[in-house]
Protein backbone atom coordinates (compact mmCIF):
# COMPACT_ATOMS: atom_id res chain seq x y z
CA UNK A 1 0.00 0.00 0.00
CA UNK A 2 2.86 2.31 0.88
CA UNK A 3 4.35 1.77 -2.57
CA UNK A 4 1.00 2.32 -4.26
CA UNK A 5 0.67 5.60 -2.38
CA UNK A 6 4.13 6.70 -3.57
CA UNK A 7 3.29 5.70 -7.12
CA UNK A 8 -0.07 7.44 -7.20
CA UNK A 9 1.23 10.55 -5.45
CA UNK A 10 4.19 11.08 -7.74
CA UNK A 11 2.35 10.27 -10.96
CA UNK A 12 -0.78 12.33 -10.30
CA UNK A 13 -1.10 14.51 -7.21
CA UNK A 14 2.53 15.55 -6.92
CA UNK A 15 3.52 15.17 -10.57
CA UNK A 16 7.05 16.57 -10.88
CA UNK A 17 6.44 18.54 -14.04
CA UNK A 18 2.86 19.68 -13.82
CA UNK A 19 2.44 20.20 -10.08
CA UNK A 20 5.94 20.74 -8.69
CA UNK A 21 7.28 22.47 -11.83
CA UNK A 22 10.53 20.54 -12.00
CA UNK A 23 12.19 19.44 -15.23
CA UNK A 24 10.39 22.03 -17.35
CA UNK A 25 13.28 22.33 -19.80
CA UNK A 26 12.99 18.83 -21.34
CA UNK A 27 9.22 19.07 -20.94
CA UNK A 28 9.18 21.94 -23.43
CA UNK A 29 12.27 20.90 -25.35
CA UNK A 30 11.48 17.33 -26.41
CA UNK A 31 7.69 17.34 -26.51
CA UNK A 32 7.40 18.08 -30.22
CA UNK A 33 7.72 14.54 -31.52
CA UNK A 34 6.08 11.47 -30.06
CA UNK A 35 9.08 9.25 -30.79
CA UNK A 36 11.48 11.53 -28.93
CA UNK A 37 8.99 11.75 -26.04
CA UNK A 38 9.10 7.99 -25.65
CA UNK A 39 12.91 7.97 -25.80
CA UNK A 40 13.23 10.76 -23.25
CA UNK A 41 10.65 9.16 -20.96
CA UNK A 42 12.44 5.85 -21.00
CA UNK A 43 15.76 7.53 -20.24
CA UNK A 44 14.30 9.60 -17.39
CA UNK A 45 12.58 6.62 -15.72
CA UNK A 46 15.79 4.64 -15.98
CA UNK A 47 18.09 7.37 -14.65
CA UNK A 48 15.73 8.47 -11.87
CA UNK A 49 15.40 4.95 -10.50
CA UNK A 50 19.11 4.34 -10.69
CA UNK A 51 20.00 7.74 -9.20
CA UNK A 52 17.59 7.20 -6.31
CA UNK A 53 19.22 3.89 -5.49
CA UNK A 54 22.80 5.13 -5.74
CA UNK A 55 22.31 8.39 -3.88
CA UNK A 56 20.43 6.60 -1.10
CA UNK A 57 23.42 4.34 -0.65
CA UNK A 58 25.92 7.18 -0.61
CA UNK A 59 23.78 9.22 1.77
CA UNK A 60 23.35 6.38 4.26
CA UNK A 61 26.86 5.00 4.08
CA UNK A 62 28.95 8.14 3.76
CA UNK A 63 27.14 11.33 4.50
CA UNK A 64 25.19 10.47 7.66
CA UNK A 65 28.20 8.99 9.55
CA UNK A 66 30.30 12.06 8.65
CA UNK A 67 27.47 14.55 9.34
CA UNK A 68 27.64 15.92 5.81
CA UNK A 69 23.90 16.10 5.16
CA UNK A 70 24.21 19.74 4.17
CA UNK A 71 26.46 18.77 1.25
CA UNK A 72 23.83 16.66 -0.45
CA UNK A 73 23.04 19.04 -3.35
CA UNK A 74 26.58 19.27 -4.69
CA UNK A 75 27.44 15.64 -4.00
CA UNK A 76 24.25 14.39 -5.64
CA UNK A 77 24.83 16.52 -8.74
CA UNK A 78 28.33 15.10 -9.02
CA UNK A 79 27.13 11.53 -8.56
CA UNK A 80 24.23 11.86 -10.97
CA UNK A 81 26.40 13.41 -13.68
CA UNK A 82 28.99 10.66 -13.38
CA UNK A 83 26.32 8.00 -13.21
CA UNK A 84 24.65 9.14 -16.40
CA UNK A 85 27.96 9.17 -18.22
CA UNK A 86 28.74 5.70 -16.95
CA UNK A 87 25.34 4.41 -17.99
CA UNK A 88 25.88 5.88 -21.44
CA UNK A 89 29.22 4.10 -21.85
CA UNK A 90 27.85 0.79 -20.58
CA UNK A 91 24.77 0.95 -22.78
CA UNK A 92 26.87 1.79 -25.81
CA UNK A 93 28.98 -1.29 -25.26
CA UNK A 94 26.47 -3.91 -24.14
CA UNK A 95 23.05 -2.74 -25.30
CA UNK A 96 23.42 -0.91 -28.63
CA UNK A 97 19.66 -0.99 -29.45
CA UNK A 98 18.80 0.59 -26.10
CA UNK A 99 21.64 3.08 -26.57
CA UNK A 100 20.24 4.03 -29.95
CA UNK A 101 16.81 4.60 -28.44
CA UNK A 102 17.94 6.56 -25.37
CA UNK A 103 21.43 7.71 -26.32
CA UNK A 104 20.65 11.22 -27.47
CA UNK A 105 18.63 11.95 -24.35
CA UNK A 106 20.99 10.61 -21.70
CA UNK A 107 23.39 13.60 -21.68
CA UNK A 108 20.38 15.91 -21.54
CA UNK A 109 19.33 14.33 -18.26
CA UNK A 110 22.69 14.90 -16.57
CA UNK A 111 21.63 18.30 -15.33
CA UNK A 112 17.89 17.76 -15.25
CA UNK A 113 16.67 19.29 -12.01
CA UNK A 114 13.88 16.72 -11.69
CA UNK A 115 16.48 14.00 -11.19
CA UNK A 116 18.23 16.00 -8.50
CA UNK A 117 14.88 16.78 -6.91
CA UNK A 118 13.84 13.16 -6.65
CA UNK A 119 17.05 12.23 -4.85
CA UNK A 120 16.76 15.12 -2.41
CA UNK A 121 13.06 14.57 -1.75
CA UNK A 122 13.81 10.93 -1.01
CA UNK A 123 16.05 12.14 1.81
CA UNK A 124 13.54 14.73 3.00
CA UNK A 125 10.80 12.09 3.17
CA UNK A 126 13.26 9.71 4.92
CA UNK A 127 12.45 6.89 2.54
CA UNK A 128 14.10 3.48 2.83
CA UNK A 129 15.99 1.89 -0.05
CA UNK A 130 13.03 0.26 -1.82
CA UNK A 131 10.84 3.26 -1.19
CA UNK A 132 13.51 5.49 -2.75
CA UNK A 133 13.68 3.31 -5.83
CA UNK A 134 9.92 3.27 -6.09
CA UNK A 135 9.79 7.02 -5.71
CA UNK A 136 12.41 7.45 -8.45
CA UNK A 137 10.50 5.12 -10.75
CA UNK A 138 7.17 6.82 -10.03
CA UNK A 139 8.60 10.28 -10.54
CA UNK A 140 9.95 9.15 -13.90
CA UNK A 141 6.58 7.67 -14.77
CA UNK A 142 4.88 10.94 -13.83
CA UNK A 143 7.35 12.83 -15.99
CA UNK A 144 6.58 10.50 -18.89
CA UNK A 145 2.85 10.95 -18.43
CA UNK A 146 3.21 14.74 -18.48
CA UNK A 147 5.54 14.64 -21.48
CA UNK A 148 3.32 12.36 -23.55
CA UNK A 149 0.13 14.22 -22.67
CA UNK A 150 1.75 17.51 -23.58
CA UNK A 151 3.07 16.05 -26.82
CA UNK A 152 -0.56 15.42 -27.82
CA UNK A 153 -1.47 18.98 -26.86
CA UNK A 154 1.36 20.36 -28.99
CA UNK A 155 0.30 18.24 -31.95
CA UNK A 156 -3.10 19.96 -31.80
CA UNK A 157 -1.46 23.35 -31.35
CA UNK A 158 0.42 22.85 -34.60
CA UNK A 159 -2.85 22.58 -36.46
CA UNK A 160 -4.61 25.35 -34.54
CA UNK A 161 -3.01 28.37 -36.28
CA UNK A 162 -2.75 30.72 -33.31
CA UNK A 163 -2.08 34.43 -33.90
CA UNK A 164 1.42 34.97 -35.24
CA UNK A 165 2.77 36.53 -32.03
CA UNK A 166 1.70 33.42 -30.09
CA UNK A 167 3.10 30.85 -32.48
CA UNK A 168 5.61 28.34 -31.16
CA UNK A 169 6.77 28.64 -27.57
CA UNK A 170 4.33 31.29 -26.24
CA UNK A 171 1.19 29.27 -27.03
CA UNK A 172 2.95 26.14 -25.77
CA UNK A 173 3.54 27.84 -22.42
CA UNK A 174 -0.12 28.85 -22.24
CA UNK A 175 -1.13 25.30 -23.05
CA UNK A 176 1.33 23.98 -20.45
CA UNK A 177 -0.37 26.18 -17.85
CA UNK A 178 -3.76 24.67 -18.70
CA UNK A 179 -2.37 21.14 -18.63
CA UNK A 180 -0.88 21.91 -15.24
CA UNK A 181 -4.22 23.25 -13.97
CA UNK A 182 -5.98 20.02 -14.91
CA UNK A 183 -3.57 18.18 -12.62
CA UNK A 184 -4.65 20.44 -9.76
CA UNK A 185 -7.83 18.38 -9.89
CA UNK A 186 -5.97 15.43 -8.38
CA UNK A 187 -5.18 17.38 -5.18
CA UNK A 188 -6.13 15.44 -2.08
CA UNK A 189 -7.08 12.30 -3.97
CA UNK A 190 -4.12 10.23 -2.80
CA UNK A 191 -4.91 10.78 0.89
CA UNK A 192 -8.53 9.78 0.40
CA UNK A 193 -7.73 6.69 -1.63
CA UNK A 194 -4.89 5.29 0.42
CA UNK A 195 -5.04 7.34 3.66
Amino acid at each position, binding site marked *: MKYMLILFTLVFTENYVLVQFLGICPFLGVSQKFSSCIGMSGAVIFVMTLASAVTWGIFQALMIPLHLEFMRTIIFILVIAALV*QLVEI*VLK*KYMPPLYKALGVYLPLITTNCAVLAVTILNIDNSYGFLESCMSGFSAGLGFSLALILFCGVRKSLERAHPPKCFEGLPISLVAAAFTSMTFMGFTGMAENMFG
Partner: protein
Amino acid sequence: MEILYAVLVLAGIGAVCSVLLVLAAKFMHVPVDEKFPKIRECLPGANCGACGYAGCDGYASALASGEEEKINKCVAGGDAVAKALAAATGAEFEDVVEQVAIVRCSGDCNTVKNKEAYQGLASCAAAKLLYGGPSMCVYGCIGLGDCEHVCPEGAIRVVDGLARVNYRACIGCGMCVKTCPNQVITLMPDVERVIVGCRNHEKGANTRKACAKGCIGCKKCERECPQGAITVVDNLSQIDYDKCVDCGHCQDVCPVGCVHFRDFRGAHTHPEGTK
Protein backbone atom coordinates in the same frame (compact mmCIF):
# COMPACT_ATOMS: atom_id res chain seq x y z
CA MET B 1 37.31 19.40 11.22
CA GLU B 2 33.95 19.19 9.54
CA ILE B 3 35.04 21.33 6.62
CA LEU B 4 37.99 19.04 6.09
CA TYR B 5 35.65 16.05 5.90
CA ALA B 6 33.41 17.90 3.48
CA VAL B 7 36.29 18.78 1.18
CA LEU B 8 37.77 15.31 1.40
CA VAL B 9 34.50 13.50 0.75
CA LEU B 10 33.62 15.69 -2.21
CA ALA B 11 37.11 15.39 -3.69
CA GLY B 12 37.08 11.66 -3.00
CA ILE B 13 33.75 11.10 -4.70
CA GLY B 14 34.88 13.23 -7.63
CA ALA B 15 38.12 11.27 -7.94
CA VAL B 16 36.36 7.89 -7.71
CA CYS B 17 33.81 8.94 -10.30
CA SER B 18 36.44 10.20 -12.72
CA VAL B 19 38.58 7.06 -12.32
CA LEU B 20 35.51 4.91 -12.92
CA LEU B 21 34.61 6.90 -16.02
CA VAL B 22 38.11 6.73 -17.41
CA LEU B 23 38.28 2.98 -16.79
CA ALA B 24 34.85 2.46 -18.30
CA ALA B 25 35.74 4.51 -21.35
CA LYS B 26 38.95 2.52 -21.77
CA PHE B 27 37.61 -0.97 -21.25
CA MET B 28 34.26 -0.51 -22.91
CA HIS B 29 35.54 1.41 -25.87
CA VAL B 30 33.49 0.65 -28.94
CA PRO B 31 35.65 0.74 -32.02
CA VAL B 32 34.29 3.24 -34.54
CA ASP B 33 34.65 2.67 -38.24
CA GLU B 34 37.61 4.80 -39.27
CA LYS B 35 35.71 6.08 -42.30
CA PHE B 36 32.94 7.38 -40.06
CA PRO B 37 34.57 10.59 -38.72
CA LYS B 38 35.81 11.48 -42.19
CA ILE B 39 32.33 11.11 -43.67
CA ARG B 40 30.65 12.75 -40.71
CA GLU B 41 32.89 15.79 -41.16
CA CYS B 42 31.53 16.35 -44.68
CA LEU B 43 27.94 16.54 -43.49
CA PRO B 44 26.51 19.85 -42.33
CA GLY B 45 25.32 18.57 -38.93
CA ALA B 46 21.85 20.09 -39.26
CA ASN B 47 20.25 16.73 -38.34
CA CYS B 48 17.28 17.65 -40.53
CA GLY B 49 16.47 14.06 -41.48
CA ALA B 50 15.93 14.82 -45.16
CA CYS B 51 18.27 11.95 -46.08
CA GLY B 52 15.86 9.49 -44.47
CA TYR B 53 18.10 8.74 -41.48
CA ALA B 54 17.65 9.90 -37.89
CA GLY B 55 20.38 12.50 -38.24
CA CYS B 56 23.75 13.23 -39.80
CA ASP B 57 25.32 10.53 -37.61
CA GLY B 58 22.87 7.96 -38.92
CA TYR B 59 23.56 8.80 -42.55
CA ALA B 60 27.32 8.88 -41.97
CA SER B 61 27.38 5.49 -40.25
CA ALA B 62 25.24 3.97 -43.02
CA LEU B 63 27.67 5.33 -45.60
CA ALA B 64 30.69 4.16 -43.60
CA SER B 65 29.36 0.62 -43.18
CA GLY B 66 28.46 0.44 -46.84
CA GLU B 67 24.75 -0.26 -46.37
CA GLU B 68 24.02 3.07 -48.03
CA GLU B 69 25.66 3.76 -51.37
CA LYS B 70 23.99 6.96 -52.53
CA ILE B 71 26.05 10.01 -51.65
CA ASN B 72 23.45 12.48 -52.92
CA LYS B 73 20.93 12.20 -50.10
CA CYS B 74 21.94 15.27 -48.10
CA VAL B 75 19.49 17.90 -49.29
CA ALA B 76 20.56 20.54 -46.79
CA GLY B 77 24.18 20.39 -47.94
CA GLY B 78 23.44 20.24 -51.64
CA ASP B 79 25.98 19.49 -54.32
CA ALA B 80 28.97 20.75 -52.31
CA VAL B 81 28.40 18.10 -49.66
CA ALA B 82 27.67 15.44 -52.28
CA LYS B 83 31.04 16.22 -53.90
CA ALA B 84 32.84 16.03 -50.55
CA LEU B 85 31.11 12.73 -49.78
CA ALA B 86 32.04 11.37 -53.19
CA ALA B 87 35.68 12.21 -52.45
CA ALA B 88 35.51 10.69 -48.96
CA THR B 89 33.84 7.42 -49.94
CA GLY B 90 35.27 7.03 -53.41
CA ALA B 91 31.80 6.76 -54.89
CA GLU B 92 30.83 8.52 -58.07
CA PHE B 93 29.38 12.01 -57.75
CA GLU B 94 25.64 12.26 -58.27
CA ASP B 95 23.49 15.33 -58.33
CA VAL B 96 21.45 16.01 -55.20
CA VAL B 97 17.73 16.13 -55.71
CA GLU B 98 16.79 19.49 -54.26
CA GLN B 99 13.42 20.95 -53.57
CA VAL B 100 11.87 23.79 -55.52
CA ALA B 101 8.83 25.87 -54.70
CA ILE B 102 5.86 25.18 -56.95
CA VAL B 103 2.86 27.49 -57.23
CA ARG B 104 -0.19 25.28 -57.58
CA CYS B 105 -2.38 27.92 -59.20
CA SER B 106 -2.70 29.16 -62.75
CA GLY B 107 -5.21 31.93 -62.21
CA ASP B 108 -3.79 35.36 -62.99
CA CYS B 109 -5.94 38.48 -63.15
CA ASN B 110 -7.05 37.69 -66.70
CA THR B 111 -8.48 34.27 -65.89
CA VAL B 112 -9.79 34.40 -62.34
CA LYS B 113 -12.81 36.53 -61.40
CA ASN B 114 -13.02 38.65 -58.28
CA LYS B 115 -16.02 38.70 -55.99
CA GLU B 116 -15.00 41.91 -54.27
CA ALA B 117 -12.64 44.82 -54.84
CA TYR B 118 -10.13 44.51 -52.03
CA GLN B 119 -8.59 47.80 -50.97
CA GLY B 120 -7.07 46.94 -47.62
CA LEU B 121 -3.54 46.17 -46.51
CA ALA B 122 -1.49 44.78 -49.38
CA SER B 123 -0.90 41.40 -47.77
CA CYS B 124 -2.32 37.99 -48.63
CA ALA B 125 -2.70 37.12 -44.95
CA ALA B 126 -4.82 40.24 -44.36
CA ALA B 127 -6.89 39.76 -47.51
CA LYS B 128 -7.50 36.13 -46.61
CA LEU B 129 -9.16 37.19 -43.35
CA LEU B 130 -11.85 39.06 -45.31
CA TYR B 131 -14.19 36.32 -46.58
CA GLY B 132 -11.29 34.16 -47.77
CA GLY B 133 -9.78 36.72 -50.08
CA PRO B 134 -11.02 38.89 -52.94
CA SER B 135 -10.95 36.20 -55.61
CA MET B 136 -13.93 33.97 -56.38
CA CYS B 137 -11.58 31.02 -55.97
CA VAL B 138 -10.72 30.69 -52.29
CA TYR B 139 -8.12 27.99 -53.00
CA GLY B 140 -5.81 29.90 -55.30
CA CYS B 141 -3.10 32.54 -55.25
CA ILE B 142 -4.30 35.81 -53.72
CA GLY B 143 -1.53 37.63 -55.54
CA LEU B 144 -0.59 40.28 -52.99
CA GLY B 145 2.95 38.99 -52.74
CA ASP B 146 3.55 37.74 -49.19
CA CYS B 147 5.76 35.04 -50.72
CA GLU B 148 7.61 37.62 -52.81
CA HIS B 149 8.51 39.61 -49.66
CA VAL B 150 9.65 36.59 -47.69
CA CYS B 151 11.76 34.96 -50.43
CA PRO B 152 15.45 35.39 -49.48
CA GLU B 153 16.65 34.87 -53.04
CA GLY B 154 14.17 37.13 -54.81
CA ALA B 155 13.06 34.09 -56.77
CA ILE B 156 9.34 34.87 -56.61
CA ARG B 157 7.62 37.67 -58.48
CA VAL B 158 3.92 38.40 -58.59
CA VAL B 159 3.02 39.18 -62.19
CA ASP B 160 -0.62 39.87 -63.16
CA GLY B 161 -1.79 38.81 -59.72
CA LEU B 162 -0.15 35.39 -59.72
CA ALA B 163 3.04 34.39 -57.91
CA ARG B 164 5.62 33.01 -60.32
CA VAL B 165 8.82 31.23 -59.29
CA ASN B 166 12.14 31.65 -61.03
CA TYR B 167 13.15 28.02 -60.58
CA ARG B 168 16.83 28.61 -61.36
CA ALA B 169 16.99 30.99 -58.39
CA CYS B 170 14.89 28.92 -55.98
CA ILE B 171 16.95 27.30 -53.20
CA GLY B 172 14.03 25.31 -51.82
CA CYS B 173 14.12 26.87 -48.34
CA GLY B 174 10.34 26.66 -47.98
CA MET B 175 9.84 30.16 -46.52
CA CYS B 176 7.11 30.87 -49.08
CA VAL B 177 5.39 27.58 -48.26
CA LYS B 178 5.12 28.63 -44.63
CA THR B 179 4.00 32.15 -45.50
CA CYS B 180 1.28 31.48 -48.08
CA PRO B 181 -2.07 31.69 -46.24
CA ASN B 182 -3.77 29.50 -48.86
CA GLN B 183 -1.02 26.86 -48.91
CA VAL B 184 -0.82 27.32 -52.66
CA ILE B 185 2.93 26.88 -52.74
CA THR B 186 4.53 23.54 -52.04
CA LEU B 187 8.00 22.05 -52.28
CA MET B 188 8.69 19.40 -54.88
CA PRO B 189 11.80 17.45 -55.90
CA ASP B 190 13.33 19.36 -58.79
CA VAL B 191 13.60 16.27 -61.01
CA GLU B 192 9.88 16.31 -61.71
CA ARG B 193 8.62 17.92 -64.89
CA VAL B 194 4.84 17.97 -64.57
CA ILE B 195 2.64 19.77 -62.05
CA VAL B 196 -1.06 20.38 -61.64
CA GLY B 197 -1.38 24.15 -61.40
CA CYS B 198 -4.62 24.24 -59.45
CA ARG B 199 -5.89 23.47 -55.95
CA ASN B 200 -9.61 24.01 -56.48
CA HIS B 201 -11.69 21.15 -55.13
CA GLU B 202 -15.06 22.60 -56.17
CA LYS B 203 -17.19 20.86 -58.77
CA GLY B 204 -16.24 21.62 -62.36
CA ALA B 205 -19.08 24.06 -62.98
CA ASN B 206 -18.25 26.11 -59.88
CA THR B 207 -14.55 26.11 -60.65
CA ARG B 208 -15.33 27.22 -64.19
CA LYS B 209 -17.36 30.19 -62.91
CA ALA B 210 -14.46 31.37 -60.76
CA CYS B 211 -11.49 30.76 -63.03
CA ALA B 212 -10.91 29.94 -66.69
CA LYS B 213 -7.78 27.94 -65.88
CA GLY B 214 -8.97 25.94 -62.88
CA CYS B 215 -9.06 22.14 -62.87
CA ILE B 216 -12.66 21.14 -63.61
CA GLY B 217 -12.10 17.47 -62.83
CA CYS B 218 -13.00 16.33 -66.35
CA LYS B 219 -10.74 13.28 -66.02
CA LYS B 220 -9.36 13.70 -69.51
CA CYS B 221 -5.77 13.52 -68.23
CA GLU B 222 -6.70 10.47 -66.16
CA ARG B 223 -7.94 8.68 -69.28
CA GLU B 224 -5.16 9.84 -71.59
CA CYS B 225 -2.13 9.33 -69.33
CA PRO B 226 -0.20 6.42 -70.86
CA GLN B 227 1.20 5.43 -67.45
CA GLY B 228 -2.06 5.70 -65.52
CA ALA B 229 -0.25 8.09 -63.19
CA ILE B 230 -3.06 10.63 -62.90
CA THR B 231 -6.20 10.27 -60.80
CA VAL B 232 -8.89 12.83 -60.13
CA VAL B 233 -9.61 13.03 -56.41
CA ASP B 234 -12.25 15.45 -55.12
CA ASN B 235 -12.54 17.15 -58.51
CA LEU B 236 -8.82 17.80 -58.76
CA SER B 237 -6.14 16.02 -60.77
CA GLN B 238 -3.36 14.40 -58.79
CA ILE B 239 -0.16 13.01 -60.22
CA ASP B 240 1.50 9.91 -58.84
CA TYR B 241 5.15 10.84 -59.34
CA ASP B 242 6.29 7.25 -58.87
CA LYS B 243 4.51 6.33 -62.09
CA CYS B 244 4.99 9.58 -64.05
CA VAL B 245 7.61 9.34 -66.79
CA ASP B 246 7.56 13.05 -67.72
CA CYS B 247 6.07 12.60 -71.20
CA GLY B 248 4.06 15.80 -70.94
CA HIS B 249 1.01 14.38 -72.68
CA CYS B 250 -1.30 15.61 -69.93
CA GLN B 251 -0.36 19.20 -70.67
CA ASP B 252 -1.35 18.74 -74.30
CA VAL B 253 -4.75 17.24 -73.52
CA CYS B 254 -5.81 19.44 -70.59
CA PRO B 255 -8.77 21.50 -71.89
CA VAL B 256 -8.24 24.36 -69.43
CA GLY B 257 -4.46 24.38 -69.39
CA CYS B 258 -3.86 23.87 -65.71
CA VAL B 259 -1.33 21.06 -66.12
CA HIS B 260 2.15 22.39 -66.70
CA PHE B 261 5.03 20.52 -68.27
CA ARG B 262 8.21 22.42 -67.59
CA ASP B 263 11.76 22.24 -66.35
CA PHE B 264 11.66 22.96 -62.61
CA ARG B 265 15.35 22.55 -61.86
CA GLY B 266 16.38 24.70 -58.91
CA ALA B 267 19.34 26.89 -58.05
CA HIS B 268 21.79 24.19 -56.90
CA THR B 269 21.16 21.73 -59.65
CA HIS B 270 23.94 20.20 -61.58
CA PRO B 271 23.37 20.75 -65.32
CA GLU B 272 22.85 17.07 -66.05
CA GLY B 273 20.42 16.54 -63.19
CA THR B 274 17.39 14.67 -64.51
CA LYS B 275 15.18 11.94 -63.25
